[in-house]
């Protein structure tokens, strides 16, 4: 029913930092999200791209050092394609 208290606390701390970064990065805002898809505001692509590049280096280093493992979602073609589509429709409000 529950993870261990230290793990819960770790999740909370990670979440607070994630929330601050998302808010400072402005990706919680309607006009930024819609602006991206109208190709007027590239904040979302810049932020996600940087996160992926920086994150990738560390995550693969940790995996190589046996300190973490990859957690890859299954390639369920129908689910991923339909899911991506459904998530995108009316993604803006």
């Amino acid at each position, binding site marked *: 029913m529950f993870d261990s208290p230290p793990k819960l606390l770790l999740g909370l701390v990670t979440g607070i930092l994630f929330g601050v970064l998302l808010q400072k990065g402005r990706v919680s805002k309607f006009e930024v999200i819609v602006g991206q898809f109208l190709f007027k505001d590239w904040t979302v692509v810049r932020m996600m791209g*940087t996160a992926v590049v920086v994150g990738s280096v560390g*995550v693969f280093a940790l995996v190589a050092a046996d300190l973490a493992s990859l957690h890859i979602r299954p390639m369920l073609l129908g689910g991923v394609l339909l899911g991506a589509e459904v998530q995108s*429709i009316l993604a803006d409000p």
Partner: protein
Amino acid sequence: MKNPLTMKSWSPYIAGAGIGLLSWFAFATADRPIGVTTAFEYSAALSAKAAVPQVEQTNDYFAKKEAEGKPPKIDWEWMLVIGVFLGAMISSSLSGDRGVATVPPLWRWRFGDSAAKRLTAAFFAGALMMFGARLAQGCTSGHGISGTMQLAVSSWIFIIVAFGIATLTVWAIYGKEGVGHV
């Protein structure tokens, strides 16, 4: 130097690098990728079980998750979601970036100034997004950031399709004229 927390925004490259570093932290300390929507699935499953205990026998979701070794529970990710609310609240309070319009200008231009209309649309769109995220087993965080950085095929397909369809949707709704109203 100005306190970064009182600034309304950071460069997207700084915020993005921060999320990248935070991913190292999540993998190193909890061996978990940052994701959000699984916590909503677990909440729904736990609520159903609390309301109707026999659902655990009648719905094979529970047996399947048990077999996967991932029974729904209040876990690291669940607390992460609570943290995101708190972190965003702290960040916006410290910078005074709190005045979010219920009806943003672009929406008003397209759909008028009814708050009820926008809130209703946002509610159903949110439910649709959650449905899609669970079909794909990931959202913009779980697939879009955490999955792509692990170079997962499923995540790259997800984010490309999601961005593509979102672009078509937004252009269908707001069109060329909308660009002038963002």
